[in-house]
């Protein structure tokens, strides 16, 4: 488990991170969500030791993080970059060797991960000749080639088409399955929502919400229901304990005062006309995000 506790970072008078604490569990994917300039990249750089911090600490499995442990991390920086003229396979092999693998093992691992990410045909091409999406895949390979057990990925999905997102998601889930702690930031909230087990939401340099995705959802859920029926549900407006949020003949979204009110509405709907669907509405990550960031 990677533990970030009380990290503070100041640039002169400006505080960019204020007492940031959260943890990234092994075997799980943790999504790191926040607006532009919220402090995601700064936090990640501090975890990697690329930036000094003004306060707080980072520990791994209960022990303070050492430089040697950091060097075994897999990191995908926000600013992408590999040597443009170097061939894809050579580049990833070189990085694997810098992480301590023998030349032959490094080359094998590089070829494996590149193939897994769908670059098997492009091994001998220079990075600069690849499309942006494929350069992105090479960048992900660079973070994964040395089998890191902690992965810090800054916006790993930006610039990827939906198919590539699926490929990368599969690889990340497989790494987490083997016991890696994975922290990734993204502004594609739908992807984060689908993929992550845990969530950290940051805004203006401080953590607004952190924890298991489902727990967060429950915490932020309201008693909101959605009804779709064939008839006119206009009677909802006169029903006690109901507040209609959105209404369009057969479609209604409403808040209920308690569970009894909900059951009452359902019974009446069935009596009035054919019900197509009646379901409680869970807040989407986007909604939770908007709510906690406000």
């Amino acid at each position, binding site marked *: 488990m990677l533990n970030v506790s009380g990290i503070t970072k100041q640039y002169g008078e400006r505080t960019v991170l204020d007492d940031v604490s959260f943890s990234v569990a092994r075997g799980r994917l943790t999504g790191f969500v926040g607006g532009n300039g919220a402090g995601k990249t700064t936090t990640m750089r501090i975890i990697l030791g690329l930036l000094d911090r003004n306060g707080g600490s980072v520990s791994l499995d209960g022990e303070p993080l050492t430089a040697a442990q950091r060097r075994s991390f897999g990191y995908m920086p926000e600013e992408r*970059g590999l040597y443009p003229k170097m061939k894809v396979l050579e580049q990833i092999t070189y990085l694997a060797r810098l992480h301590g693998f023998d030349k032959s093992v490094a080359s094998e691992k590089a070829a494996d991960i590149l193939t897994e990410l769908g670059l098997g045909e492009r091994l001998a091409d220079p990075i600069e000749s690849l499309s942006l999406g494929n350069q992105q895949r090479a960048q992900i390979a660079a973070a994964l080639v040395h089998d890191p057990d902690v992965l810090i990925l800054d916006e790993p999905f930006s610039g990827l088409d939906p198919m590539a997102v699926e490929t990368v998601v599969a690889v990340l889930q497989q790494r987490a399955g083997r016991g890696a702690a994975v922290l990734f930031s993204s502004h594609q909230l739908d992807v984060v929502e689908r993929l992550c087990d845990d969530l950290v939401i940051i805004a203006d340099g401080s953590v607004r919400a952190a924890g298991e995705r489902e727990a967060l959802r429950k915490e932020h859920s309201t008693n909101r229901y959605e009804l779709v029926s064939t008839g006119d549900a206009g009677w909802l407006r006169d029903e006690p304990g109901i507040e209609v949020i959105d209404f369009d003949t057969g479609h209604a979204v409403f808040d209920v005062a308690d569970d009894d009110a909900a059951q009452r509405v359902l019974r009446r709907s069935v009596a009035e006309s054919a019900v197509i669907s009646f379901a409680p509405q869970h807040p989407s990550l986007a909604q939770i995000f908007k709510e906690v960031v406000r």
Partner: protein
Amino acid sequence: MTPQPLSTPQATYLVAEREVATRVRSKAFVISTLILLIGIVVGILAMNFFGERESTTQVAAPDTISAQLAEIDGIEVTEVADADAARELVENEEVDAAVVQDDESPTGVTIVALTDAPSELLQSLSQAPNVELLNPDAGWSPIRYILAIAFGIVFMMSAMSFGSPVATSVVEEKQTRVIEILLTAIPARALLAGKVVGNTLLALAQIILIVAAVAVSLILTDQTEILAGLGTPLLWFALFFVAGFLLIATMFAATGALVSRQEDISQTIAPVMYIVMIPYFLVIFFNDNPLVMGIMSYVPFSSPVSMPIRLFFNEAQWWEPILSIVISLIACVLVIMLAAKIYERSLLRMGARVKWSEALKK
């Protein structure tokens, strides 16, 4: 299978290996090196060829003198009937000069030429008194000047052609942002050391190729005695070169770390360029000034140029090059430590150029 974390020397080796491989594989580098080597060989061969051909002087002389002249090297004699016939050939520009009998002249002959006195012919016919030089090595000599220029140029050119790529490759890593990934894998000092070592090896390899090209051309043109005299100074030059180049490459790396775009590199690189050029000019203007040469042979940036020259002319005591190289190595260690500091502080700074004072302050 878990990898073994690299030690700093191992990481340095890997970085150096990549630097060398990238450079050696670039077509521009291979072609420019080949052109340089071919230029050296062709140049020495051509100088030798033209040097030999122009030394023959066509001379007309009456038969009384022609027999004596024929024994002198570099003269081709045309035998004529008398002095007037010889003069006529000179006027018609069929020969360079004529040698005719003249009893009033102390040498017994007069040289007839059209516009200029033919100096080579004059020399070979003159009788010069014996000269005894008490200190033959101390005076101005063309070989001294040539050596000064040769060592000066080789050092300056190598420093520029292999030093500035160090700065460029540092900036390239900053500009392409690959630096962030590299620094999460290895320490900044290993990256710095690897770049410096890789480019020093490349520069040294090119120096060795140049020396080999010079040696081969001198052997081909039968000038082996110059070669024998050059042996020891060349070895010293190579040794000093390594120390001097390490210093310069380290400075280039540090200056490269201060900017984040190739376009800005010329701003920070200028001071290092001056440091590289100044010894070259000093050694050209002051190569016969023992005081300046003596001081220069201890200053780390200029010792690779001036110490080998002093050694060639036996002006330095046996301990002097050793002391000088120790000074160079100490300077090297200090500059590397300083550069590592600048490097670590500036590598992740993007955007505007980092000021020296900012990079150095705590």
